[in-house]
Every structure is written in C-alpha cells, then in structure tokens.
C-alpha cells in the first residue's frame, strides 16, 4: 500500500463540495418521493454523511485500501444507527440493534428460502448501504482523483433506475436537477484543475475568474437542460430496435421474479406506465406486450348475457392525422353530480360493482364501461355538453394509487339485445351529432365510398355497425406491429386498402371512421380487454392492452363492438321488439339495481370531498421538505451568485476581540483601550499584523517610529536596537515588501513567524532593561549588545 504524498494539493473546494452534496441530496430525495416505504430519509442522511467521509478520506494520506476499510468500518457503525432510528424511540438502543439484526437475519432467511420478504427494513438496509457507498465513493473520487465523472455517474445511474421504476413523468425533473448540479460540478472541477496548473506555472489568474466562469457555467448548463427537457421526443424506434427491446424484456423476465420477492414489502416496485392512455392516443406502430400483471378484478359471479368486460381507461372523440384526442377535456377537482347524458332514461344497461386491485402504481382508474361510483377520491376528466350534462372521459385517482391498493367501482354496462339495438332508431341528440360525427378532411374518398358500400342495404344503424365489424374481422389480418406509415398517406386509407393488417387501434379507428362516414355516431375507447378469467377473478396483464369502438344508440347509450379479429366476437341476445323497453337479458343473481333507469347517479356525490383536501398537496409530494428547503436556498443563492454580490465581497470572519468590542458598543458600554487596541490588531491581515510587531517593538524599546519612516527605515532602526533579530527582521521586511509592492502575495506564515521572534526578543530586552533600571537606576536606553554587557 502506498501512502499518499503529503504535498499533493487539494483538488476540491467548498464550492465543489456544495455541488456534490446538492447532487446527492437530489438523488436521495428522488428516492424519498417514491414513497416506496417509510423512513427513506435515511438514504439522504447516509449519502451526505458518506460524501463528507469520502471527501475527508480522499484528502487524507491514507492509501486507497485503508480508506476503503475505514469507509466500511464507519458504515458498519452508522448504518445500524440509522436503521435503529427507524424503530420506536422508546426502545433502548441495545434492544433496537438486536431487533434490527434479528429482522435482517429473518429477511435474509426468507430470501434464501425463495419466499417473499415482507419486512421493509430489509429494503431500507439495502438502500441505506447503497446510499452510504455511493456517498463515500463520490466524495473520495472527487477529493482523491479530482474526477467529477466518477463521483456523479453512479448516483446518476441510481436516479435513472429509480425513474424507470417510478416512471411518473413529472418526477423526471429530479433527474434534471441532478444533472444540473452534476454538470456544474464538472465545470467547477475542470476550473479547479486548470487553476492548479496555473498556480504551478505561476500564471497570474484574475481574482474573480472562478466566479465569472461559474456564472457562465450556470447559464450554459441551465440553458442546455431547458432545451433538452423542452424539445419534443424523438420518433419511435426503428423495427430492428423493437426486436432488441423484446429480447431485452425477455432476458429481464427471469430476474424480475426474484427481485419482486426481495422487495415484496416495498410499495410499488412495478415498472408500468401509470398513464398508459394520456390525453392523446396515436395509432403508432405497436409493440409486443409483456406478461406483467396490472390489475386483478373481482367481478359479479355471472355477467349479464351479451356483456363483455372492457376495463376502460379513456374515451376519445376527435380523430385527425392518426391521433385520437378529445375536443374538450376539463379536469374537475370535485366529481360533479354526473348526469350521463347518454344514459337518460337508458334501458338495456346493467349495473354492477367491481373490486379492482392494482399491481402497479396507477393514476387512471379502470372501470368497465361507464363508472357511476368509485370508492377512492378521484378527479373526473370530462367534456361538458351544451345542455349542461357532461361526458365522462376518464376518472383519475387523487392521489395516485400505490401498488396493491384496492378500490371498488360501480359501473353501468351496456347489455342490450339485438332487437333493442335495431329498434333504437337514429334520432340522435344534437351534441352527439356535433361531437361524434366529426371526420378529418383527409379521409380519402375511397374510404367514404367503402363505408357507403358496406352500409348499402342495411336497415338500421345497428345493422351497419355489425356489417362494418364483420367486414373488418373478415378482411383485415391481425398483426402486433405495423411498418412505418408511408409519407403522405392517410392511416385509415393505408390500413384498409394497402396494408390490410394491423392491431386493435387500427381496427377500432377504421370502424369509427367508417361508421361516422355514414352518419352513425361512434367513438374510440382505450383500456384493457377482459383478461384471464379464474372464476370471478379477472387477471389483466400488459398484453391485454386494447382499443375498441363504441357506438351511440338513442335511449341505450354507448355500446361496444369488437372488430379486432384477435378478440372473440361479442354475442348479444336477440330479444324481441316488444321487450325493447323494460326487458332485457335475465338478471344475474345477487346484483343490485340491474337495468335500473340511470339518470342521475346519487352515489357519485359520495366522492365529493372538501375543496381544500383536493387542493392540498398529495402526501408523497409533501414529504421532501428538505429538498424544498434546499431549492429555496438555491433560489435565493443562485441569483445572488449570478450577480456576484455575495462572493465578490470577501466574507470576513471577525475574531473574538472584534466581536466583543462590537458587542460592547452595541449595548452602549465604553470599550477599554487595551481591548480596542487588541481588536484593532486582531482585525488586521496577517502580514500587517506581523509588521505591526516592528512598530510595537520600537515603542517597547523606547524608539517609537515616526509616521514618515518607511518600513525599511523602521526595520533598520529596530535592527540597531535588536541586533539578534536582524535575520528575522529582514525576512519580515522582505515579505512585507513583496506583499506590498510585488504581484506575489508574500508569505504570511513566514512573516508571522518572524514577527513572533521580534516580539519575543524585544520583550526580553525590555525586561532586562527594567531589571537593570531597578539595579543601577539607569535611565538611558542602550542597544541590546550594550545592555547585555552591563
């Protein structure tokens, strides 16, 4: 092992340490806001303590091996202490440590035995240990290697992994903040290494070069991040990349299960997008979907005949250029007393209650068809209708739901008979016609012609819808992915006439467009298909992601159709024309309110919560108060830094006598003369303080200097009186002159040393003189040599 040479310079400063700490704090706060478990603040503490220790070890002379041993030893002390803090406070520390050890051993045994580890302390210990190691490594790399990349890359990777497993897009800002501090650290460390070289080569550097370059770095990094975060996303990957992605997913699958077991106690370890269906839905190119479990739904024992469960997330009414969206979508913090316009007096519908358990953190609440009540506080995304009613587009939990959370939803499902649908007629309300017959102008004539051909000879809108569905199921082949859309082509036209294959979104879009082309209102719904049924339980996986068309029937409402050939066809009971109103399929046992007139949904009013509760910050966002405080400090400091008002002023740490003097003056007490002189001397810069010893020595030896005397004359005079201090006096004078007249700063240390010698010798001579006065009564002063000879 090689000890680090003592002479090696310092490769970091307070600014670098601050930026490193800020970056680490950002990374640990990113973990904290996931709210994966309680007590995640320990990651911040350990990361910061580790970084401080890493900086100290990096600056020390310890060889790297010894430094690693010391870091591990400190970690072995600090980690149990931090874990102990997570236990109840009234337990003795010895008991806490025993408890921690016992629980960790138990968790480890569970892991080895391939059981799920249900104790969150295991996850905390892993996270704490990792935070400690990352902090120590970052500090050590910065202080010993002067390598900022080594310091920031491992924590940056950790932030990225957290972002992948907690993929709420708004939280990507923490990654941006981390990159902000990291890039500033890189720029600052680059400047420090340059400055060290400049000092070696005696290159004169302006006093505020670091500050000026720091301000420029601040602006450049902020601009880069703003641009990078503000630019629109790149196009989807090319087909070869899809294959790589699928292979990677396939490779990842075997590892997922053990990890899930290890972190079973952690809330929300999944990696699914919480908003799989956002405000816009592009037709896209499709991708292979995995087996990841998303939802488990407990449904009534037996559904009504003709009812197909679709776990709907969102509906879309406007289509243009291959993208679905909503013409109007307002978010209401309080769910209104919904009057589902389409359900006024609706018949042929069936109401049931479902219990949904999420396997991932979710924001959008999934419900079969039209939800009328949910057990969770939620926000409604809705489109108001001209008659004062609203169309419910989606329901979102507020706050979002953790993985493993269950909620109940009561929904109204369409269960009409064929006869009811045929007899529904075509007298659509005005708002339905305005909103759900919209077609973009780029729809090609041959698409419209195809719609007319299919609809030809059909008697009712239902017959047209069935004909279109059948046409699509028979003519179009299912395929999970499609090639890129040729330039200048309209997607539906390309799908129907050239490609003739595709996935559910294309099927549903084509059906909606064809129906609208012949004047039948339709919309697109997105969510998940029925999933895997096990008795009354439906397991919905990622691969069940689906889109389907919904057609409006007066007096019945929105009814699902299934044109995608990979999904089974919907079989509806035929019924009879007479039974159109008030009759329907036989009611399933044990269900309440089946086929009741819907109208208003009083249950929805139960969702209403006090306004302030909705307006408040979600608990997960309230946690990182520390980060908020840091941001506040930065917001205050950074503008000041940018204008250079703080650092351009030299920060003066007043010595004790100065503070005492100031305190006495503040309270109005007289300041004693010795204290005043002491405070004055203490406030001088070191070189001046050293030089002041010359003046004091002259006064002490009875030859106070004249104000007109130059430093050289004063020293020469003192040298006559104090020959034994000649060498020190010359050294002091030289340093003083160097500092005063040359571009070099001089050596305060050498000057202070010399000043101390001068003070000591002059005092000794003074005492000898006093002694000789007392003995001989002499009054004249003589130089030191003569005094000694008396």
């Amino acid at each position: 092992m090689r000890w680090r040479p003592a002479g090696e310079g310092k490769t970091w400063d307070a600014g670098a340490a601050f930026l490193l700490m800020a970056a680490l704090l950002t990374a640990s706060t990113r973990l904290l806001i996931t709210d994966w478990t309680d007590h995640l603040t320990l990651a911040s503490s350990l990361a910061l303590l580790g970084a401080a220790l890493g900086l100290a070890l990096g600056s020390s002379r310890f060889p790297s091996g010894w430094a690693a041993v010391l870091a591990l030893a400190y970690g072995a002390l600090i980690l149990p202490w931090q874990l102990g803090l997570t236990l109840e406070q009234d337990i003795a520390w010895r008991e806490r440590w025993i408890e921690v050890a016992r629980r960790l051993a138990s968790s480890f045994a569970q892991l080895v035995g391939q059981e799920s580890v249900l104790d969150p302390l295991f996850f905390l210990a892993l996270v704490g240990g990792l935070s400690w190691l990352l902090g120590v490594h970052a500090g050590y790399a910065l202080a010993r290697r002067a390598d900022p990349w080594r310091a920031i890359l491992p924590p940056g990777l950790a932030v990225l992994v957290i972002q992948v497993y907690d993929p709420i897009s708004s939280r990507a800002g923490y990654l941006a903040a981390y990159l902000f501090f990291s890039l500033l650290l890189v720029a600052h460390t680059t400047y420090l290494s340059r400055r060290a070289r400049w000092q070696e080569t005696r290159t004169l550097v302006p006093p505020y070069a670091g500050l000026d370059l720091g301000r420029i770095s601040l602006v450049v990094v902020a601009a880069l991040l703003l641009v990078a975060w503000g630019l629109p996303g790149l196009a989807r990957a090319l087909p070869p990349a899809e294959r790589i992605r699928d292979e990677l997913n396939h490779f990842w699958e075997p590892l997922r299960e053990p990890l899930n077991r290890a972190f079973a106690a952690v809330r929300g370890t999944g990696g699914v997008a919480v908003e799989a269906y956002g405000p816009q839905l592009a037709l896209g190119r499709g991708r292979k979907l995995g087996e990841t479990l998303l939802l488990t739904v407990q449904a009534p024992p037996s559904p009504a005949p003709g009812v197909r469960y679709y776990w709907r997330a969102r509906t879309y009414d406007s289509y243009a250029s291959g993208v679905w969206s909503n013409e109007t979508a307002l978010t209401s913090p309080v769910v209104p007393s919904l009057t589902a316009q389409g359900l006024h007096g609706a018949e042929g519908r069936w109401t049931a209650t479902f219990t949904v358990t999420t396997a991932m953190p979710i924001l959008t609440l999934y419900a079969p068809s039209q939800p009328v009540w949910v057990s969770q506080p939620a926000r409604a995304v809705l489109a108001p209708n001209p008659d004062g009613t609203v169309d419910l587009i989606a329901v979102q939990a507020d706050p979002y739901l953790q993985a493993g959370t269950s909620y109940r939803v009561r929904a109204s499902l369409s269960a009409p008979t064929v006869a009811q649908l045929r007899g529904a007629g075509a007298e659509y309300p005005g708002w339905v016609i305005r909103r759900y017959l919209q077609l973009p102008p780029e729809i090609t004539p041959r698409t419209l012609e195809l719609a007319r051909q299919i609809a030809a000879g059909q008697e009712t809108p239902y017959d047209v819808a069935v004909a279109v569905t059948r046409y699509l199921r028979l003519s179009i082949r299912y395929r999970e992915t499609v090639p890129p859309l040729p330039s200048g082509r309209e997607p539906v036209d390309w799908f129907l006439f050239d490609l003739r294959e595709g996935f559910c979104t294309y099927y549903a879009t084509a059906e909606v467009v064809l129906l609208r082309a012949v004047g039948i209102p339709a919309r697109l719904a997105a969510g998940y298909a029925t999933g895997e049924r096990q008795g009354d339980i439906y397991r919905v996986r990622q691969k069940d992601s689906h889109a389907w068309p919904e057609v409006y029937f007066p007096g019945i409402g929105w009814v699902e159709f299934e044109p995608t050939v990979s999904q089974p066809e919907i079989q509806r009971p035929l019924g009879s024309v007479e039974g159109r109103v008030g009759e329907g399929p036989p009611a399933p046992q044990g269900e309440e309110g089946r086929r009741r007139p819907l109208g208003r949904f009083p249950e929805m009013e139960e969702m209403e919560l006090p306004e302030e509760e909705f307006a408040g910050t979600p608990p997960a966002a309230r946690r990182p108060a520390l980060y908020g405080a840091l941001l506040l400090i930065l917001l205050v400091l950074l503008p000041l830094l940018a204008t250079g008002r703080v650092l351009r002023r030299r920060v003066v740490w007043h010595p004790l006598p100065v503070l005492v003097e100031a305190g006495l003056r503040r309270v109005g007490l007289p300041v004693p003369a010795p204290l005043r002189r002491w405070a004055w001397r203490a406030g001088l810069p070191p070189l001046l303080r050293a030089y002041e010893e010359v003046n004091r020595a002259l006064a002490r030896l009875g030859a106070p200097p004249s104000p007109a005397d130059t430093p050289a004359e004063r020293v020469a005079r003192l040298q006559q009186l104090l020959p034994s201090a000649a060498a020190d006096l010359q050294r002091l004078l030289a340093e003083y002159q160097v500092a005063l007249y040359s571009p070099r700063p001089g050596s305060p240390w050498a000057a202070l040393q010399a000043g101390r010698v001068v003070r000591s010798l002059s005092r000794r001579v003074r005492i000898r003189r006093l002694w000789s006065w007392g003995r001989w009564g002499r009054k004249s002063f003589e130089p030191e040599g003569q005094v000694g000879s008396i």
Partner: protein
Amino acid sequence: MSPSLRVVVGLLALSLLALAVTGGPLYARLSYLWGGLLVVGWLWSRLALRGIRVHRQARVRRAQVGQVFDERFEVHNAGRLPCAWLEVRDGSSLPGSRGSRVLVVLRGGERRSYLTRTRLVQRGVFSLGPTEIVSGDLFGLFPVRRVVPPEGSLVVYPMTVEMEGFPYPSGLLPGGEALRRRTQQVTPNAATVREYAPGDPPGRIHWPSTARRERLMVKEFELDPRSEVWLFVDGARNVQAVLPHPPLNRYADALWHPLVQVELPPSTEEYAVSMAASLGHHFLRRGRAVGMVGGGSSLQVIPPDRGGRQLLKLLEALAIFRAEGDLSLLALVTVQARHLPRGNTVVLITPTVGEEVVVAVDLLLRRALRPVVLLLDAASFGGAEGTAELIRVLVGMGVPACRIACGDDLREIPGRFASAVPDAELPLPTRRWAVSQV
C-alpha cells in the same frame, strides 16, 4: 480525446441505445443533453480562438543581469463573439518570465494589455516567445491552443561589478616610444593630417590646416603607447565545475529595486564570465584598449579597442559564452600569444588546476607580456583541488595571482591582489626574455 469527452460520448451512445430500445422520452432528453453538450462544447472551442490576436512588445532588446525587463502583452479579440476564458502562455526561455496570464470574459472587439516585469538573473540570448494561447469549453471537452511564433530575442549581458584598484602594469610600453601604428580610434597622439575623404567623421577635421590649405584636412592618429589589455577566458569543458543550485534567487522578483546584485550561480563558468565582463568594463572606463580571447564552444577573438562600443562587443560575446570548448588554457595561450604585442597585459581567468597554468604564464612571460592570473578555486565549486598550491607557485614566479572561491564577492578581488603582491613589485619582463621570444 480528453477523458471528459470520452465519458460524454459514452453517455450519448448509451442514451441513444436506450432510446432506440425503449423509445422512452427520458432517454430522448438525455440524448439531447449529451448531444447538446458535445455540440455546444465543440462550437465553443472552435470559435474561442478564431479572432484572438496576441502581440508582445519590448522597449529594449538588450539588458544586463540584475536589471528589470519590461514587456507589454496585448491581446485583441478581433472577432464578434466573446471568449469566456483565455490563457496566454509565455513560452519564452527567459528565466522568471511572468508573461503567462489568464483572461476571463474577453468580449468581441475588446483589447486588453498587460505589462510584465522580469528580473534578469541569467545571461544569454533568450527568445521572446513563442506565445501559446489556450482556451476551450467549460467542461474540458475540447481544449484548443494556438502558438504564436517568437517576436525577436533579448540579449542579457553578464553581471558586472566594480573592480576599482585592479592591478595592471603602469601602462607604457618598454621605452615609452610611439608605436607608429595608425588607428581609427581617437587617441591623444595625432600623427599627421591628410586630405578629407568621404566617410571621415567631421570631428576629425583639423581646422587650422583646412584654413591654411583651403581644403578639408583631417587628423590621423597613432596607437596609444599605453599597453593593451587582453582577457583570456578559459572555456575548456573538462576543467569547469558547478554546484547544484536553485534556479532563481528567492527575492529576485523584488521589482521595486531598479537593480539588485543578483547572486551568481555557483559555477566556474559564470564567475569567469562575470569577472571578464567586470574587468572589461573597468579597463575600458579608464581608456584602455581591451581585447578578449574566449575558448568556449567556439573560439572567440575580439581585437582590442577602446570605447563604449567595445564594451558592448565584449558583453555580447560574453552573453553567449559557453564553457564547452575543447581548447585548454595552454593551447589557447600558445595559439594567441604570438599575435600579441610585447608589453601587453594578459589577464588569465581560469579554473584550471595544474602545471599547464604555470607553463602558460611562463610562455607569456617569455613573450614579454604581463600576465595576471585570476584562478577560480575549482574545489569550492565541486571540482579538483590544488588551487592554493598553484597560487603559491605563481606568486613565486612574480605573477600577480588571485584565488576566487565560490561565494566570494568579486568586488574584493582588487584588494586581494594588493595584499598579495604589491603593484610596485610586479616584475617587468627583461629585454632578454623579449628578445629571446622574438
């Protein structure tokens, strides 16, 4: 490729790969960031030095050790874009040169200049450059540099000290007769007048003769009957000695003093050069003609002459003198002594220890020359012993000799001669010696 650049390129590649595989917008942002960093850094570096001009000016191109050399650097950003930081590296070989500076935020069209002051501590010829300008982006990705070639050179003369009282023969040639040798110098001995020729200086016009003959007449001079002084500097490589020493004086940059007595490096070469320069200055100031023979890396022979111009010639020759020759002192004397007029004074400056010094002195004596020996004590410079014995032999021969050790004050040399051999007792070569030599 700098380490930071490697890291950023690697991060960009990983981000693009992740983007291609997952299509996630986060990786798109990261790709933008790393790509943007590379693009901005590259553009920044490329444009940083585009309009930068550096010019350095010196008021003098000749100075002496101990003096302060002033040089002015002017940096002009002729471009429109600002330069965030700029390092001016002074590549001059001048020891202690302080021309290196860092300039921050140099705006477009802005000019900045600064003055550097350098205490000259070493003789020689030093190039004023090259000047290197360095800049780059803030993250150390693309460092850029450009070299500006040197703009002239500086000749630093060796240090001289006062040699008041240095012994030399009384000044007249044997017999005191005129030499009858014409010279271009103005001497106290005007020999005749002649008709003016184009190129003759106006100061030599003899106006009474001009008036009498009614045409311009100029004076012609003869050599001063006083003897010339020859300085023989021993530059043989194998007899030199030097002690390890720090490169610069601790307080050499105390620039508020116009001239400081710079400590000589503990090298026989530097002591010899400084003594030769001091003696040249000493004799020339007294109106004597001084010549020099230097046996350094190349044989240097400067014919004797008087005046300030001759001093500059001597100092320039000594400024570039390097004791790296193969010619021993005896060989030097043997080659050159035959060309020296009788009665001239020859000052031998040598660290040689051995009989060849005695033989050389004997040769000079036999040619009716008057040798004076300045013997550098090689042992005190880390070289061979034997200087003291040699001094005794030389003094025994009646030759003025002085021993100079490392660290001695050169100003004390004349005093040592006075105490060793009184000037009055200096032997004059006899006619027999001179005749026999002839």
